[in-house]
């Protein structure tokens, strides 16, 4: 039996200028869990237009992590679907859901980008915008990206709370990654190129290099938070920004 693997994780969430100006809390959430050789990480962006978007984001992050960390990896895609369904079931019975059925889920609208990784094999699961990035080889700059998905309008996206959420659920497998990032759409606008299919070269890679070397997690988090709160980052996006980094080595 292999030794237990410990995954280093750094994640920060900053409140965007838009929500700061309105005096409301950020709508992004993140969570992670690890167990022996497996790590599960999830990031979610509660829809600003939804009454309880933040709750929808928090529930899916926590529930999916909790269920997937002990699920059978051989059937992980089915377990991911089950975990999302379990979250939806919880929200149907939530005290703030007046209808106590699917119709009330719209108030909890949130996107979902997550990943499960174990023994060199991983898969992103994704509904809506935001992105997942697996860095395979630093010297060759090989990456696998789970791209954002938008609707007809740039601001329109997909949520796990929609009736037809299964149509929007995408899986992107990857193998032998050194590290991975999960991010909300407040970060994708400068982490990804305009076509949203490749990385801006001077954003993700320097962050990966810094976090890989910085063993003090508190210091790493502070530096990441400060970086996401620079005037330039605020200027490029007024949205909340969440970025999670997981070392998979």
């Amino acid at each position, binding site marked *: 039996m292999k030794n237990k693997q410990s995954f280093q994780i750094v994640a920060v969430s900053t409140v*965007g200028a*838009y929500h700061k*100006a*309105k005096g409301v809390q950020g709508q992004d959430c993140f969570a992670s869990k690890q167990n022996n050789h497996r790590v599960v990480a999830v990031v979610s962006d509660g829809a*600003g237009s939804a009454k309880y978007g933040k709750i929808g984001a928090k529930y899916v992050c926590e529930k999916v992590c909790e269920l997937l960390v002990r699920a059978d990896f051989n059937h992980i895609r089915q377990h991911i679907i089950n975990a999302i369904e379990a979250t939806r079931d919880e929200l149907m019975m939530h005290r703030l859901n007046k209808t106590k059925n699917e119709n009330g889920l719209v108030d909890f609208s949130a996107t979902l980008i997550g990943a499960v990784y174990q023994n060199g094999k991983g898969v992103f699961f994704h509904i809506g915008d935001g992105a997942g990035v697996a860095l395979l080889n630093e010297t060759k700059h090989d990456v696998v990206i789970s791209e954002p998905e938008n609707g*007809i*309008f*740039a*601001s*329109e996206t997909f949520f796990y709370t929609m009736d037809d959420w299964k149509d929007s659920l995408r899986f992107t497998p990857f193998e032998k990654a050194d590290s991975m990032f999960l991010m909300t759409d407040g970060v994708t*606008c*400068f982490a990804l*190129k*305009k076509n949203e299919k490749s990385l*801006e070269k*001077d*954003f993700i890679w*320097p*962050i990966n*290099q*810094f*976090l890989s070397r910085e063993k003090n997690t508190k*210091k790493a988090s*502070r*530096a*990441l938070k*400060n*970086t996401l709160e*620079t005037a*330039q*980052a605020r*200027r*490029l*996006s*007024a*949205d909340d920004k969440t970025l999670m980094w997981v070392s998979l080595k």
Partner: protein
Amino acid sequence: MADTQNISSEMIPYVEFADNANERTPCVLVLDCSGSMRGEPIKQLNVGLKALEKELKEDIDAASRVQILIIKACGKEDEAVVASDWVDAMDFTAPSMEAGGLTPLGKAVQLALKKIEDQKELYDSCGVSSKRPWIFLVSDGEPTDYGWEQAAQECLDAQKNKKVIVHAIGTQGANMEKLAKFSLMPPKRLVGLKFTEFFLWLSRSVSCVSKAAPHADDLLKDIDAWNEE
């Protein structure tokens, strides 16, 4: 204190942020600020511009996608001047307009067409795509400058060549017949001094267009808040 400073200045080195490469929707406001706008009309226009600034900045997408240029037609010398040069909506500060002089709408739209052409060149050189620019021509009177008909024809030609979309808006006292010569679409009439309603509608419309997929349907609807049939 020193520790706090160190903590707040801890940054990840070598990180560079890409420029805002969002597709832009250029929007030009050509505003009649002639003497007849003195008093309540110019006051309401300024209130409306402030509302436009606030509304655009609060729209996450529009803030980085819409670019604004304001040209005012006014002055003794039939001047058309840039009151606020091209700027992303997130950086837009509503200028304070003053009324006085004549109404050189011809010169103002010619300046608008020239500025649009220059801006398009800039977009192309930076690899930034753009939607078809909008010009909103707002007047409470009629053009007074020599050769305005030629300028109006240039406006029509630019629209026929799909280089621009022109909307003419007349407030009380405007010569709608002459304003109609600047646009392929019939001019609209503003009810009373509902500049704020008009600018809020403009903000939402331009925001909607900026987020729309290429070749999306006409999104200029719901003008009841300010339009007089």
